[in-house]
């Protein structure tokens, strides 16, 4: 399968601190890649760089390059809003905007240009169904999104990204605060999403990484330690540091 993203010698500095250290990594189209590691490994920063959300931070310096479909995402003729439409993001905590459920999900559609009422309703419904939330909210799409439970909010955030019809979805430790049932529902929808999207996931633990992903990458202090299938990396790691992580010596 072709590479969706090709990350080449990416280093990321915040002020004078190096957060990502000369990272090389390829992400194939329509795979689920889990990137995991202990806290402060640079994973969130990596995800925020892939959709250039890091542009909104100050005192940031980036070296190296990221190619998406063979073209640098830092090229001057790249439209950042277009990039973010193609590369959706689900944050670590549920992040409903202070709007109704419907308006949250239609947000990405509306900022992209004029969209008819009927088309918006159809795409919101499709997104809600894909994120396994439709049955729970179909009769109350116009209540404030804040009134949903945490798990529902997080699925709504996934639906909000799906509604934009992106190519890639970045998911940052999105199940860390959720109950097992919500987590199961989210994981279930992930495997369906894979057919249509490339998914880069920061799982909230090793078990989840093995359960849902085609490939995993293990990062430590901003560097890539190793990558491969879940069975390989966590069953028979090449690197001492990976096995230390799995057996719980740190992180």
């Amino acid at each position, binding site marked *: 399968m072709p590479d969706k993203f090709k990350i080449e010698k990416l280093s990321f500095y915040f002020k004078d601190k190096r957060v990502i250290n000369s990272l090389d990594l390829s992400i194939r189209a329509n795979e689920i890649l889990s990137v995991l590691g202990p806290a402060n490994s640079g994973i969130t920063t990596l995800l925020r760089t892939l959709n250039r959300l890091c542009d909104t931070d100050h005192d940031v310096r980036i070296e190296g390059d990221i190619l998406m479909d063979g073209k640098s995402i830092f090229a001057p003729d790249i439209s950042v*809003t277009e990039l973010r439409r193609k590369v959706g993001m689900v944050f670590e905590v549920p992040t409903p905007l*202070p709007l109704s459920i419907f308006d949250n999900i239609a947000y*990405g559609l509306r900022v992209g240009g004029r969209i008819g009422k009927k088309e918006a309703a159809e795409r919101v419904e499709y997104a809600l169904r894909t994120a396994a939330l439709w049955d729970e909210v179909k009769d109350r799409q116009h209540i404030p999104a804040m009134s949903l439970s945490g798990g529902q909010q997080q699925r709504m955030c996934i639906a909000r990204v799906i509604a934009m019809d992106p190519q890639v979805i970045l998911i940052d430790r999105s199940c860390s605060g959720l109950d097992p049932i919500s987590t199961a529902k989210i994981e279930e929808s992930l495997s369906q999403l894979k057919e249509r999207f490339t998914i880069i996931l920061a799982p909230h633990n090793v078990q989840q990484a093995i359960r849902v992903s085609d490939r995993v990458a293990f990062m430590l202090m901003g560097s890539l330690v190793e990558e491969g299938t879940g069975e390989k990396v966590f069953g028979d790691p090449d690197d001492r540091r990976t096995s230390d992580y799995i057996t719980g010596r740190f992180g």
Partner: protein
Amino acid sequence: MKISARTSEKIAKTLIWTAAVFVLAVLMFIILYILVKGLPVINWGFLTQVPRSMGREGGVSSTIVGTLMVTSVAVLIAAPFGIGTAFYLAEYTKGGFITRVIRFSAESLAGIPSIVYGLFGFIFFVIYLDLGWSVLSGGLTLAFMILPTIIRTSEEAIRSVPKIYREVSFSLSATKTQTIFKVVLPSALRGIANGIILSIGRCIAETAAVMLTAGSALRMSRSLFDPTRTMAVHFYILAVEGISMENAYGTAALLIIIIFLINVVANTLVNRFVR
């Protein structure tokens, strides 16, 4: 003589409670005194009749209209500039030279005494721009005066909008402008409204600056270019020139009630805003 820690604790607590009770008592006394003397004067006729014989007789309707007109001009002019400045400070600057200049100027404006605003409004609007003593001159002068309040309260409101809202909006492919108008502004609206309401209170209470710029005509103003008299100015003239103590108390009581209501509205907004 050495005082034990427990004794000094007791003395200090007593002093502080006394001070607090004293402050509250003085406040209550001032307000209640004015209300007791003034409320009986207020009736339908007082609110709807034009003042007659310099305010000795009749009501205060033209001064209510004058206050409304002057305040409206001030807020309509100052709000867009103040809110725009606040957005620039909160969303666009990164703490550079321009930010410091803007912030310094805003804070300095906040400290200028109202009489100096009055002097400025008189020479600039009344004389130089030849607007004469008018609703417009008074309103524009007050717009300058409330500008720093609107800037400060709006900036606080904008900054209190969680950063994550902006990031979510960006991640959903919104531009900065879309993010500001679709997410930040709606979320900050209550705080901004609160600042505007407080500014309305300041306009209504102001005397020195409007007296020098809007004049003190008792006639009902029909246009922005007519001179007018606000309630605060009317109260001042009635009281100082001893025209009618009764009507002075009535006007003062009316002012206090309006300010009280404005504070209630502002507090309700803030409480909702915090939740």
